[in-house]
């Protein structure tokens, strides 16, 4: 009952004009951000995090969550129209979305993506609401050792960021973790790696790292591969799918939403894996599997329902435990930190208005995206065709002023450019930048709980505390599973001597 009454109050609070305006702005920015190839949902959210600093914490987080949710639909627009997924999770949408455009049925592809995305998002939000609260209550009983285990489990997210090389992804997360140790030690108060400079006493702030690694490095990467050609969008047919066509895919949408939400909950999986797994399941369970890859509405719906529902799933560990389930969640933690909030079980006790505000806004964002998609797709398609020659300079100026604005610090701006250059180098050589951010985000939680655990119970606490042991084992399995699988495949391929 308490949950429903809190949720009711949160929905009423959303009706305030200021909140509504921010939600609409968030959804528009999210769809546009998601639709621009090269700008991931994490980048779209990261670009806005510093500007949310001056806002009330509840409004700021509602804005960012709306961007996060809407970006997942946005990714499908360019996936369907030009075969260029706006987000990595929309890659599976290309498989059937673009063939529809080639057949002159782009409107049907976009319509199926929109409806499936919104229904999937709503499903994920409902699961988020009903699972998050009990999980947060249980988490209040966790020991520091168990929390350390959970934070390490959070690192398992990098398994989905590795781009084929898990060793480099782990190295990237270690770089982030090591960066986080610079500055004042949270327990003993000793200064570490400050090199005699008072600028490093507080270490590196999260926002410059976010902006540098997610925005500036992306621009460097695009400039290095510059062709000077702009995206070409032909005149598209805007006829939406009929109700009968949508009704036929209801089972596929529901199944994909369930898969997406479950995969989203586990750090290490994420929206991209969710959409490919759902696509595969949809193909195998379809009555017309031969149509997949040639413009099947089911294929578009499976991918979109899964990646949208994974947002709700990924928010569960973030809100209940403070563990990010995806790269965008790691960025959201930056927003929490910026407003002096710590996501986790205590947030439910101390700031219920914020938590329930987020729940309500995830649900409402999907309805807004549905309306915007139905009536505003032409606008989004026009905006997506904006030239990269304008887009990239503006990403840079927005990232730089955003970084500066948080603490009015030129040092932060310099760090942002530095992180941008480092991020570009790392990415060029196969080290994904997202795990660096994850390491910076989780670094303090890991170190603080590890050392508290050891001080309270010695090093043996990590195998005598059952929960810590179980979670650490799961984390190790998630992290090293790709390595074990690769080794196993290599062994099987090797001819018998």
């Amino acid at each position, binding site marked *: 009952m308490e949950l429903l009454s809190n949720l009711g109050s949160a929905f009423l609070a959303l009706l305030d004009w200021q909140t509504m305006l921010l939600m609409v702005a968030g959804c528009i920015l999210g769809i546009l951000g998601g639709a621009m190839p090269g700008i991931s949902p994490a980048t779209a959210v990261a670009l806005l995090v510093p500007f949310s600093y001056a806002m009330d914490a509840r409004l700021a987080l509602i804005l960012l969550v709306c961007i996060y949710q809407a970006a997942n639909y946005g990714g499908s627009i360019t996936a369907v129209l030009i075969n260029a997924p706006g987000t990595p999770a929309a890659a599976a949408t290309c498989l059937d979305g673009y063939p529809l455009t080639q057949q002159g049925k782009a409107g049907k592809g976009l319509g199926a993506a929109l409806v499936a995305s919104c229904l999937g998002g709503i499903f994920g939000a409902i699961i988020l609401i009903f699972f998050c609260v009990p999980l947060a209550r249980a988490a209040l009983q966790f020991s520091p050792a168990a929390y350390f285990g959970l934070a390490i489990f959070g690192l398992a997210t990098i398994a989905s960021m590795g781009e084929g090389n898990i060793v*480099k992804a*782990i190295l990237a997360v270690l770089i982030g973790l090591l960066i986080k140790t610079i500055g004042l030690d949270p327990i003993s108060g000793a200064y*570490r790696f400050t090199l005699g400079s008072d600028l490093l006493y507080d270490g590196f702030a999260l926002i410059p790292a976010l902006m540098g690694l997610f925005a500036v490095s992306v621009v460097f990467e695009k*400039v*290095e591969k*510059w062709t000077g050609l702009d995206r070409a969008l032909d005149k598209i047919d805007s006829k939406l799918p009929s109700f009968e066509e949508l009704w036929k895919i209801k089972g596929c949408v529901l199944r994909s939403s369930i898969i997406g939400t479950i995969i989203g909950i586990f750090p290490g999986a994420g929206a991209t894996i969710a959409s490919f797994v759902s696509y595969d399941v949809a193909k195998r369970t379809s009555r017309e599997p031969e149509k997949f890859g040639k413009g099947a509405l089911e294929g578009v719906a499976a991918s979109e329902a899964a990646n949208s529902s994974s947002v709700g799933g990924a928010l569960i560990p973030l809100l209940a435990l403070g563990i990010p389930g995806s790269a965008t969640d790691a960025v959201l933690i930056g927003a929490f930190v910026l407003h002096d909030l710590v996501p986790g079980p205590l947030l439910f006790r101390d700031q219920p208005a914020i938590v329930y505000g987020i729940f309500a806004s995830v649900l409402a964002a999907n309805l807004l995206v549905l309306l915007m998609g139905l009536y505003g797709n032409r606008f989004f398609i026009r905006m997506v065709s904006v030239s990269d020659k304008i887009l*990239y300079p503006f990403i840079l100026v927005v990232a730089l002023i955003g970084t500066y604005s948080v603490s009015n610090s030129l040092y932060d701006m310099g760090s942002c450019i530095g992180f941008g250059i480092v991020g570009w180098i790392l990415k060029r050589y196969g080290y994904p930048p997202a795990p660096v951010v994850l390491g910076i985000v989780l670094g303090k939680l890991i*170190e603080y709980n590890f050392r508290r655990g050891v001080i309270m119970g010695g090093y043996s606490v990590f195998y005598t505390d059952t929960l810590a042991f179980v979670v650490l084992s799961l984390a190790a399995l998630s992290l090293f599973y790709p390595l074990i699988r690769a080794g196993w495949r290599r062994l099987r391929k090797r001819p018998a001597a």
Partner: protein
Amino acid sequence: MWSVKFFSEGMGLLWLTIGVLAILLALGLAVRFSRMRPYLGNILVSCSLVAVSLVFLILTFDFPAEEAGPSVIPRLYIGLILLLSGVVLVQTFRGREPAVPGLRQPALLARVMAVLIVYFLALPFLGYFLCSFLLVVVLLQTLSYPRKGLIYLIAAGWVIFSYFAFYKLLYIQLPLGFFEGLF
């Protein structure tokens, strides 16, 4: 008598940095003229990680020694970085790492990076508004924006927007440089 403290700041740190850079440069040159040349970047990135980790490791000996003290976690991370960088290096030498193709637009990228660095250095003197106007103009020209007449209009639009949105509405204390008295 030299101690770890000597390397943690001032001249000692400078010498340490110069030493590390010299070693990396020598290594780079050695790889450049060997059969591993296509993997120069991969090897340099891994070796830089090893070098920086070793510097960090040296610095941890200056931390207070206590059980579960401030050096425990950094040393754990450093150990893992050294181990995994070694794994990546071995993979590279065994040809399991893909060679990264050369830069497609090195001059363009260098120009964009240089423009950003100059912008950052000029900000305290020329102020945010003039610097940002010039930044947008230069970036649009660098990326060959075709409508030349619009470039100045777009840059001026950004300056006016940032003046009202950030300076007036959000009260962000933007650096004004020589124009401090004007605002």
